[in-house]
């Protein structure tokens, strides 16, 4: 990587190559400045002001951050989101690896199974949420019908604050087909000689999985963990749809689901900014989300040196 150019003054050849590249990369540079760099700068600066979105922003120093510290809904939404991520990311990882292994089976019609498992992952999340509202209906839904028929309890999936987040975790698993395909490609990339020599040594399927497959999947696992974490912290659509986005019963209030159990961080940010037009506080929330995402991602990266293998040792 060229972190710092060796010569500060570019040679003639370098300058002309920049001019050649400009028409290609130029659009990205403009887009980056306008749609990524400026918005980050904006959130950061507005977070130190009181601003309704119209007129002038009034500087108020750290007041928004002090307010956040004392704001029970901030903590509630942070708790809900971290609870969701702590559950959804590992569950999603295990399911994606299991699906990837299953898709690797030598069965003639495996493409059909692969298609059926992958297809839900490209469907709109809001539509999947609608389906879950019907599927998880405590009295007339299919899921409880199956559970009760098997002798289990009738669960109030979307009405009991203890189950609402679990419901969203289950919903998210409909999207596991995408990561599963990435794991499938990685599994197929493992050299077959490794399995052959292990089989000669008498290693069973489980041992081969633990000592060959799993270590060689760790780079993909790391990628999936970090992306799952970043996307999990952004969970919004299911919570918005399930709680009707503040329309109807809870209109004009900071309410999302029974006991606010579906008040996820980004839903709280959205409501603060666009339903209550408190742009200053919403910007502070956005800045904190950014910091939390970066810190958690870096923490995972730091641990990765001890468990990610780029080749078999």
């Amino acid at each position, binding site marked *: 990587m060229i972190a710092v150019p060796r010569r500060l003054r570019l040679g003639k050849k370098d300058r002309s190559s920049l001019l050649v590249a400009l028409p290609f990369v130029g659009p*990205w540079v403009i887009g980056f400045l306008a749609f990524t760099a400026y918005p980050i700068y904006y959130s950061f600066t507005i977070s130190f002001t009181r601003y309704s979105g119209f007129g002038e922003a009034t500087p108020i120093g750290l007041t928004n951050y002090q307010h956040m510290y004392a704001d029970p809904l901030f903590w509630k939404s942070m708790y809900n989101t971290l609870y969701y991520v702590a559950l959804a990311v590992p569950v999603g990882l295990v399911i994606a690896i299991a*699906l990837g292994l299953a898709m690797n089976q030598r069965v003639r019609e*495996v493409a059909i199974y692969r298609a059926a498992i992958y297809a839900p992952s490209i469907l709109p999340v809001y539509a999947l949420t609608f389906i879950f509202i019907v599927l998880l209906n405590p009295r007339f839904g299919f899921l409880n*019908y199956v559970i009760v028929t098997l002798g289990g309890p009738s669960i109030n999936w979307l009405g009991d604050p203890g189950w609402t987040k679990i419901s969203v975790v289950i919903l998210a698993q409909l999207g596991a087909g995408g990561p599963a395909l990435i794991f499938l490609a990685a599994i197929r990339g493992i050299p*077959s000689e490794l399995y*052959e020599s292990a*089989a000669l040594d008498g290693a069973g399927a489980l041992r081969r999985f633990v000592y060959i497959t799993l270590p060689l999947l760790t780079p993909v696992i790391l990628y999936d963990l970090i992306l799952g974490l970043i996307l999990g912290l952004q969970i919004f659509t299911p919570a918005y749809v399930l709680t009707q986005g503040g329309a109807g019963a809870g209109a004009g209030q900071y309410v999302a689901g029974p006991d606010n159990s579906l008040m996820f961080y980004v839903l709280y940010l959205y409501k603060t900014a666009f339903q209550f037009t408190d742009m200053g506080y919403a910007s502070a929330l956005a800045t904190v989300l950014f910091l939390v995402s970066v810190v958690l991602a870096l923490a995972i990266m730091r641990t990765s040196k001890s468990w990610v293998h780029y080749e078999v040792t």
Partner: protein
Amino acid sequence: MTVRTVERPLAVEQRPRTGRRRQRPLAGLFQAAVTPRVILIGMCVLYVVPFYWMATTALKDNPELNIYPPTLWPQAPNPGNFVSAVRYIPFPQFFINSVILTAGTAIGAGISNPLIAYGFARIRWPGRDLMFAIVMATIFVPFPVLILGLFDVFTKLGWIDTFLPLIVPAFFGNPFYIFLMRQFLLQLPIEISDSARIDGARELQIFWHIILPLAKPAVAVVIIFAAVAAWNEFLLPLIYLQDESRYPLAIGLQFFRSQHNVQYNLLMAASTLVVLPVLGLFLAFQKFFIEGVSVGAVKG
């Protein structure tokens, strides 16, 4: 569902059959043919049941929705629910809006990402690798962090409550698609470009006349992914659009939920109509989807 049953190898070559040899014929047959099928079919059932429930609920009449135990097949399937669902909300208007947003985004992605990826893959310039690292880093910026600033940008441009904030950014590239295109362009031999350069071709000509025709499969993947993402997008139209006449289906379908008595059969009928175009696109372009996703695994 008719799915093409041709087994396509993924980006990486399939490994030959390994593992234990068949010592005992019957047990071996069971292990090779029956067990994996039972597992796979079991997994598929979990992924198909929600859509079965969606389709059958869409066909049920109102009284049947409140029967316990729920009927697994509609007593008298009523396709009229689809008509009612479409009339219940301004469905055609929402549909047209969704199509415009999807097409605009797909066109933008199809133009910008190959161009940008070419600049990172096939031209040498000082600072290129650092700049590409920044492109990759933006994947990890949580999108909600940007929405307030984006709202400010588009307010200043006077674009709020128009389709522009939803379409125009697609013309400036997306890190995932830039990465995907770049991976593809790196595989094309550099000699192709070199010989054209010797003949005096300019870089844009090489891109347009030589590289782009070779990169058509990758461009197709980008266009398809961008189209599906735009069709599915929820948060952005929610923020930028205010007037009902401009709502896409994602926002328009919320009307079914804001009523006191939600008509679940109509909601499911509308959901079916939203899901079907995506499923159709998937069945038509299955190999593009599957190969496109797999690029993520080949990364260094």
